[in-house]
C-alpha cells in the first residue's frame, strides 16, 4: 500500500499534540556576530578595545533581543549594525614548540599567529574584551524563566535559569580558518566550542540569566569572520503547538511560516515548536496534529509528500504512533518539552 500522508496520519490517529507539563523550551533566530580580526569590516560600526557583552535579552512572551551591551558608559550596539574588532594587540604567535597538546583544538601550528580575545580582562584596555550574557532581563520576563539543567558534563549539575548559546555556523576568511571558545584555570581546561572537529550540538556555552561570562575566543586567521549563534532557554509559557503566529489557532498561516522556515535554524515564529532550534518533520507533525482547518489539510499532506521520500513516509508514520501514545496521557492542549 502506498503510504500517503493522509493514510499515515489516519493510522496515527492523532487529534491533538499534547504534552505535559512543566517547561517550554524556546529557541531564538540565528544571530550573526561579525568579527574583524585585525581587519576592517566595511558596512559596520566597529567596536574596539572595550568591554562589551553580547546579550540575548529574554523578553516577556518568549522572544530575545540581541544587543551589544558595553560596560563603562559607551553606546550599546547590535550585531546587525556593529562589528567586533579583534585588533593587533590580541595577536599571539604560537611558539615554535607549540602549545600544550591539550590545546590542539585551537587548530594552530607552531610559528602561526592566532588572535585571542582573553577570558581575563586586559590591563591596559588596549583590546576587545568580549563576553556572552543575558543581563537586563525585566522582572516580568524573569518570572517566565525556569530553572533547568543542561545535563552537560562541563557544567555543575545545578538547575538554574540557564541561557544556552549554541554555535551554528562559522564563516572564516578561508576554509582553513578555525574558531574556538574555551576557559582555562587552576589546571582545568574546558573547551566549549571548537570548529576543528566540526560544529555540533556540543559546541555551546551556558550562561546564567542575569549574568555574563568571559571566555578565550581564538581565531586562527586574519580577516572578517561571521559567527552564527542560536540561543535557547526553558520557560513556563504555555503555547499551542503549531501556532507560529500566536493568534490562538493553528491554520494555513502557521503552516506557511513553518514551510518558509523548514530545514533552517530558527525560532517558534518560523516553526520550531519542539525547541530544538531546527524546523523539521517533528515540528510539522505537531502543527498537523493541532491543525484547525480540516478542509485545508490536504494542502499540508500534499506538501508533506513533496519533502518526504516514499520509504521514509512509513517510518515517519511509525514514529508518529509512538509520539501519539506518549502524549495521549496528557490532556493540556499545549506542547512542552522537558
Amino acid at each position, binding site marked *: 500500500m502506498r503510504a500517503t500522508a493522509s493514510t499515515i496520519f489516519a493510522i496515527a490517529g492523532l487529534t491533538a499534540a499534547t504534552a505535559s507539563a512543566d517547561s517550554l523550551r524556546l529557541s531564538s533566530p540565528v544571530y550573526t556576530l561579525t568579527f574583524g580580526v585585525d581587519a576592517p569590516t566595511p558596512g559596520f560600526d566597529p567596536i574596539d578595545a572595550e568591554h562589551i557583552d553580547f546579550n540575548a535579552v529574554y523578553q516577556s512572551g518568549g522572544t530575545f533581543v540581541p544587543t551589544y551591551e558595553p560596560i563603562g558608559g559607551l553606546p550599546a550596539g547590535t550585531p546587525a549594525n556593529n562589528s567586533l574588532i579583534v585588533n593587533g594587540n590580541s595577536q599571539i604567535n604560537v611558539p615554535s614548540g607549540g602549545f600544550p597538546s591539550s590545546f590542539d583544538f585551537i587548530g594552530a601550528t607552531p610559528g602561526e599567529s592566532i588572535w585571542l580575545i582573553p577570558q581575563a580582562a586586559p590591563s591596559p584596555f588596549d583590546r576587545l574584551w568580549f563576553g556572552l550574557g543575558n543581563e537586563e532581563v525585566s522582572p516580568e520576563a524573569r518570572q517566565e524563566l525556569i530553572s533547568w539543567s543542561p545535563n552537560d558534563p562541563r557544567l555543575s549539575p545545578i538547575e538554574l*535559569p540557564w541561557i544556552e548559546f549554541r554555535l551554528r555556523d562559522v564563516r572564516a576568511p578561508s576554509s582553513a580558518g578555525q574558531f574556538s571558545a574555551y576557559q*582555562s584555570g587552576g589546571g582545568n581546561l574546558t573547551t566549549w566550542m571548537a570548529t576543528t572537529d566540526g560544529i555540533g550540538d556540543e559546541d555551546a556555552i551556558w550562561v546564567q540569566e542575569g549574568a555574563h561570562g568571559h571566555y578565550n575566543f581564538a581565531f586562527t586567521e586574519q580577516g572578517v569572520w561571521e559567527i552564527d549563534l542560536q540561543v535557547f532557554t526553558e520557560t513556563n509559557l504555555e503555547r499551542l503547538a503549531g501556532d507560529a503566529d500566536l493568534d490562538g489557532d493553528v491554520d494555513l498561516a502557521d503552516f506557511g511560516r513553518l514551510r518558509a522556515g523548514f530545514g533552517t535554524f530558527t525560532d517558534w515564529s518560523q516553526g520550531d515548536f519542539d525547541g530544538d532550534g531546527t524546523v523539521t518533520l517533528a515540528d510539522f507533525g505537531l502543527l498537523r496534529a493541532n491543525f484547525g482547518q480540516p478542509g485545508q489539510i490536504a494542502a499540508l499532506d500534499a506538501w508533506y509528500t513533496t519533502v518526504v521520500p516514499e520509504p521514509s513516509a512509513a517510518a515517519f508514520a511509525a514514529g508518529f504512533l509512538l509520539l501519539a501514545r506518549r502524549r495521549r496521557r496528557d490532556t493540556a492542549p499545549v506542547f512542552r518539552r522537558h
Partner: protein
Amino acid sequence: MHKSTITAAAVVALSASTAFGQAFLDAGHFDLEIETEIEGNVVEEVKFAIKNKDFPASPFLEEYEPDEAFLVPTSFRTQSGALGGIADGASVFFVPEVQDPATLWLGLASDDTPLGVLENDQYEVELVGFTGPAGGTFVASQDDGFGGNTIFIDTSDGIANDSILIAPVGDNHYEYAFDTLGKYELTFRASATTTSAFGGSPISATGTYTFFVPEPATAGLFGIAAMVGLRRRR
C-alpha cells in the same frame, strides 16, 4: 598560630546566612568592588565593598561592607607543579578564576567608575596587610590561556610588590588560592590619580576582607548548602 574562632560545624549550620553579623559567601558571583563616588567633576569618596553580581537572583544581599561577610573558598585540589609559594603536591583551597555556579566566584572590579576619570583608566590594588594561619600562603593568579599563569600576589615572600592593576570597566577574575585551613585577613589599598578633568588628585581607599577556608569535607557541605540556596531562588 592563629586559630579560627568559628568551628567548621558552626560554619556549615550558618552557610548562606549570617552569624555574628557576618554573612558566609560560599556560592555565586561577587566582586571585591572599588566604589568611586563622583559628584560632577569631583571624586568625593573611594571605598571598598562586596558587590553581589547575581542580585536580585541570589539568596544574598546586594552589597556588603568588607567586614560584613566571610568569603568562603569551597574548591579543593592537590597542586600540580608549584604555584608561587604553594608547593607541588600541596593541598590547595581556592576560589576559581572561571565561574562554577556551585562555588564562590570572586572578581576584583570598579565597574561603576566611568572611563576618563582615572589616569590611564587604572586602579592599582596593593595587598598591604595579611594575617593567616601559621604557614598559610595566599596566591592570586590568572591563567594565561595556555596552561600557564601570571602570579600577582604571593604572600610566601611577604607582601611587598604584591599588586594588581585593574581597569574600571573590567570585571577582573583571578584564582585566589590558600594552602592552609583557617581564617585569613587581607587588607587591600586601591589607589589612582584622577585625570585633570577630575582635579588631577591622588585618591585611595583601604579595605580588609576575611576569607574563611574550611576543611574539604565541610566545604562539600557548603556546596550542598549553596545548591539548596540556589534552587530556592525560584
